[in-house]
């Protein structure tokens, strides 16, 4: 029980939660994660685009060319009722729920208020213990102001909160003019937790084919500093749960993030590269470190290094920037 934590109302046996990824798509893989000690899982995301277009693609291609020429009035058999993408997802959620004991957090990924949000209700009905709203938005409209962008977030969260009874977390990106204000606004519309942060996959340019290309970039351990900093700033000032996401690779990372104020630490890249056994290892390492350093529980250290508790708060704000640069110059005399 020394590692137990409470995340948006869910009692978890430890803070190690695999986040939405291909590892959390199917029951058999989730079972392995559970067996290795995961305290909850965030399921593979259901995307707004999938919901809006799910069947328009299949339908388009199955319909294409039909009823045009007398000999070939259709091209595919009519034998089956096809499961649409979203329905398939919902069914899978129910299957996963029935197959594991740990809480499952469904994940909806979208950016435009619309019909896809209806799926929050279906996910709840399918048995999800919580819902993560992954609002992944890249503004490219030059007339959209930062206030407009923030309103998108609050509109979506507010609608979903009004329509479901399970806890709702919001996964956001780090780039806002004022992240604390955004966090406050989300708290205001009822968000139960903030997940920090979303990873934006920035496309590359393929010089050979002169095309932009997509590429997954897995996180690295140093990436935890971004969520660590922001969680520590927000902790205690906004009253939601916090999940740190991006860069968690070891027990040390978990300890640091917990001290910054995270209730859970989410894992993906490390699990992808090192396998699900990593959870077990982190859990063991946490205990060892806590024993060595005489911590009774994780709860004891939670938020102990947040901005309001930090022994050196200046390093968390602007002062840090200046000193870092000065140190760098001092050490690099050509």
């Amino acid at each position, binding site marked *: 029980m020394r590692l137990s934590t409470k995340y948006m109302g869910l009692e978890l046996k430890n803070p190690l939660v695999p986040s939405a990824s291909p590892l959390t798509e199917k029951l058999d893989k989730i079972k392995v994660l559970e067996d290795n000690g995961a305290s909850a899982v965030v399921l593979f995301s259901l995307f707004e685009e999938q919901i809006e277009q799910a069947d*328009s693609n299949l339908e388009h291609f199955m319909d294409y060319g039909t009823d045009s020429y007398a000999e070939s009035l259709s091209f595919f058999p009519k*034998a*089956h009722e096809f499961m649409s993408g979203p329905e398939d997802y919902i069914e899978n959620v129910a299957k996963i729920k029935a197959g594991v004991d740990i809480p499952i957090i469904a994940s909806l990924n979208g950016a435009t208020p619309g019909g896809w949000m209806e799926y929050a209700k279906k996910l709840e009905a399918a048995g999800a213990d919580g819902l993560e709203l992954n609002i992944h938005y890249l503004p490219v409209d030059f007339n959209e102001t930062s206030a407009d962008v923030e309103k998108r977030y609050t509109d979506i969260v507010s609608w979903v909160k009004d329509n479901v009874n399970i806890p709702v977390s919001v996964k956001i990106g780090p780039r806002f003019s004022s992240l604390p204000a955004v966090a406050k606004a989300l708290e205001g519309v009822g968000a139960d937790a903030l997940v920090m942060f979303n990873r934006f996959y920035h496309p590359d340019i393929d010089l050979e084919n002169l095309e932009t290309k997509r590429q997954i970039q897995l996180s690295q351990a140093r990436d935890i500093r971004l969520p660590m900093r922001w969680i520590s700033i927000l902790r205690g000032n906004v009253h939601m749960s916090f999940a740190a996401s991006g860069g968690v690779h070891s027990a040390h990372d978990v300890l640091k993030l917990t001290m910054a104020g995270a209730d859970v630490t989410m894992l993906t890249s490390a699990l992808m590269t090192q396998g699900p056994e990593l959870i077990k290892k982190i859990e063991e390492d946490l205990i060892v470190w806590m024993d060595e350093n005489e911590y009774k529980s994780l709860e004891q250290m939670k938020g102990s290094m947040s901005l309001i508790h930090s022994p050196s708060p200046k390093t968390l704000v602007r002062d840090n920037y200046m000193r870092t640069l000065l140190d760098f110059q001092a050490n690099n005399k050509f």
Partner: protein
Amino acid sequence: MTRKMVTIDGNEAAAYIAHKTNEICAIYPITPSSNMGEHADAFSAQGRKNIWGTVPTVEEMQSEGGAAGAVHGALQTGALTTTFTASQGLLLMIPNMYKIAGELTSTVFHVSARSLAAQALSIFGDHSDVMSTRSTGWGMLAANSVQEVMDSALIAQATTLQARVPFIHFFDGFRTSHEVMKIEQLSDDDIKAMIDDEWVIAHRSRGMNPNSPVLRGTAQNPDVYFQGRETVNPYYEAAPEIVQKTMDRFAKIVGRQYHLFDYVGAEDADRVIIIMGSGAETVEETVNHMIAQGEKVGMLKVRLFRPFSIKHFISALPASVKQIAVLDRTKEPGGAGEPMYQDVVTAFSEAALEDYYQFEGTPRIIGGRYGLSSKEFTPAMIKAIYDELLKDKPKNHFTIGINDDVSHTSLDYDPEYRTDKGDVFRGLFYGLGADGTVGANKNSIKIIGEGTENYAQGHFVYDSKKSGSTTTSHLRFGKGKIQSTYLIEKANFIACHQYELLEQFDILDKAEDGATFLLNSHLSKDEIWGDLSRKYQKQIVDKKLKFYVIDAVTVAKETGMGMRINTIMQTCFFAISGILSKEESIAKIKGAIKKTYGNKGEAIVEKNFHAVDQSVANLFQVDVPSTLNGSDATRLIVPEAAPEFVQKVTAEIIAGRGDDIPVSGMPIDGTWPTATTQWEKRNIALEVPVWEPDVCIQCNKCALVCPHAAIRPKVADADAFKDSPETLKHIGAKGKGWEGDDPQYILQVAVEDCTGCNVCVEVCPARDKSNLSRKAINMAPQRPLRDAERVNWDFFTELPEIDRAAVKHETVKGAQLLQPLFEFSGACVGCGETPYVKLTSQLFGDRMVIANATGCSSIYGGNLPTTPWATNKAGRGPTWNNSLFEDNAEFGLGYRLTIDKHKEHAAEMMGLLKDDIGAELVDAITNASQSNEPEIFEQRARVKQMTDIVEKLDTPLAKQLLSVADNLVKKSVWIMGGDGWAYDIGYGGLDHVLASGKNVNVLVLDTEVYSNTGGQKSKATPMGAVAKFAAGGKPSGKKDLGMMAMSYKNVYVASVAMGSNDAQTVRAFMEAEAYEGPSLIIAYSQCIAHGIDMAKGMDQQKLAVDSAYWTLYRYNPMLAAEGKNPLKLDSKPPKKHVREYALNETRFTILSRIDPELSEHYMEASDKAAKEKYEYYAKLAAISYDED
């Protein structure tokens, strides 16, 4: 008992009963019967059981011959077995049908009767096929309407089990088979009540079983065969009465009473028409109309045509009859008359001596032909036949419905004669295949048919093109039963779903006074009048039409429906047609949407609901002014420059007036001119490619991949561009020996022929270095370009063709500078086959003789009105014929035999005329090498020189020589077809032809599915792909046709995919032609049946090869002769998983939606098989043939 009312077509009605009453269906697709097999397969896939509680097995065979064999075997081992077929398919079953009847075996074949290929193929309906089987000893039961199809299917099944005579149950193809009607569906209880289990058990007990062994299929000799043949007579004598009893039993259970011959009309009729099939419905409608007007007419519907019961027949007619017209929907050239006419004459002649004969003397009997290939058969024509019967000497062996100005068989009729009832809704809807008009109408019929008391009928007419095709929907609704089995002649509702169609047809010529006209237009209700031509304005005013407009395209866009205007137009139809109240109809449309999309998510349902609401809000009635201010201009159907035949015949067909062409206008033996697509400017592309000379690298890849030969390069002297049109673009040619401004290169788009598929833009490798979104060709709206580009295209075609000797044919760039002699076909937008077909025409077109298997390529290659096979300036070009589906390889081999024989004979005769011709020339001709084009051209010149001399001789031998001399010049025999032909139905023949060692080239356009008949699986279908008859994904892998051919060692084999390696493709074609033995090219061809974005077809080809899903190789026996390994593997080692290829294709992704685990299993297994195949080929290619 109330039964479920359903709105279905005849094929579904037949399949419904067949599936309920059989254990096995062995089938093979053929239009218009394919849907029956597909329905049966779908029923089984859904787990539907027959009345004995088991799910019938549906097995697709390799041909109808194979299906008949499987049926025969299944019957002989005691299973209740059926099949569905038509036309040529039925002909292929005839040998087995004799056996099945000879063995007194119970079965019913369901046939959607269709024309036979004679002077031409036709997919449409008549009785030529079923009439060809009337000597097989099968019972023949005709159904005249969709309801009757369901009823007769059951009556036939119940009868055959009792009578032991097998039955053909038939109905008219593309009328009854495809007509959607509201009918009463028979319940399982009905069906069970009609079929006694003891009959079924008796049938099974006759099956072969080693526990009680018997032997059938003996060979009998002159001593006993005859007697054996006569043993069956009692069964045939008993059969008619069994049918009648079964019909009576049916009447007791269901309430509809049928007879072997059903008479309808006046009790004291003096004139009677005898007819069978859907036409009987229209005759009945006409008879009722005429009787109401006081005429003494009647009609006899023949239901049981075989065994023909003379007694029942004679007894069914009123004694008052004086004049009889027997109508046959078939033609037997040279016969004493058509089949039913002959039977009727025989019946009267025999019955006259019997005591049941109720007539005084013999009525006058005439025979007539009608309705061949779904030719319209209308009340007006029927009235003309009754009127003819009033004459003292009515015309015998007449035709009706055509103008026979050659043999003068045809009867005149008054096209204005009608029997329409005022209370019947008659709606005509003009749309495009692509806009979903037909689908929406089918949906409307369901809504009205199943949701209201109204009877409903829908019939759909499609044009002969696979791209940009237009559709016309004929919908009738009414309180009474609908018997009009003909197209709507006067409509009280007309909808035009595409504004452009106003120009193409006279949309309003069938509008009756006071009709409602709904037009989809980008113009508002205030702007529309000014844009209409005078022709339309006048009709709207004169006929007092209620005129509505909607901008469906904008509504669709704004409501997120994209290009789908069908829901919007359907809503408008309901809103103004008055069939239902506006509120009720909207509620019903929404109900239907919920049903269709309910399982696909709220978002889609909501989107559709929104579109419905917006449709109503944007539908406006036009205040019709009385002033006619529109333009009088009419568009020429074909340009004035078109040849006379095209003007007189082709143009009439294009204009939709083919029905008016008299017999004298038609070629007598099915011979048509080629090169006529160039005159049919279809203007179907919304966007077309526009060339940017400054960016272009002149690689000609765009021209290579263009399915319609609508983008073409030329290189010509700068001088030739003097006086070029203002907007014509051209630039200095790049290439070896070409520098500076002379010669000039031009890439011209035929914007009026382009289909806008975008494939050329997708493959274009050249980009503007400062703006990478700008390629050397980019799509732009067609309309603003049309006029200028038409002029440019005409100028382009007049530019001289390049000297064929000056370019390298074996390169893509060079080959594409050669004139294509296959252009502007009706193939699908983005077709994957036609680029290969076109390439052959560029390389060898002036000496090609083509045998084309039935299928897509025979349709886009040979479906009227226009033909894409073209000619060069010298008038030479491919000559083309389509024999059948199954015999194409043999057919092509026949060409080769002729050419070789005539060449040999010509050489022999030249030898005899050596003194006149000159020994040197004779030797030069005889010994000429013709291994490449320059040598062939030289030979052509030599032969010309020789024939010039021989022509002057004027001796019988000289004349003989001249008639075959042309064969001394090498000809290129090409045998083309799809995988259905090469892998399945024609495989035996193909195998034999390859083994013959003869010099033929076989091109297999491998779409891995039966494309033309709508996506049934073939043996080329890959593992895991969903196709018809493989609804759960095909479990077995694709047959390796290439490997099989290679096993002969002396066959050139190439596997190509131009989207992956175009240079290899061109080389393979060159090598295949150069090889003096049989050559086989298997060409990967993407198809809409794959469910892909056709613009990306070439990318899919690349992925196919990169994942080793498709292997590129060439096997050249010439190399073996040189001591080298004949196999050259042209694919690089695979670098992708098959999944990366497959998941772009709906045929694979569907399965992941049905059974994700199975789909995943297939993906892995396919990938493994692909890699193994690659390894295997790599090893074969690596074997050293070097003896050292």
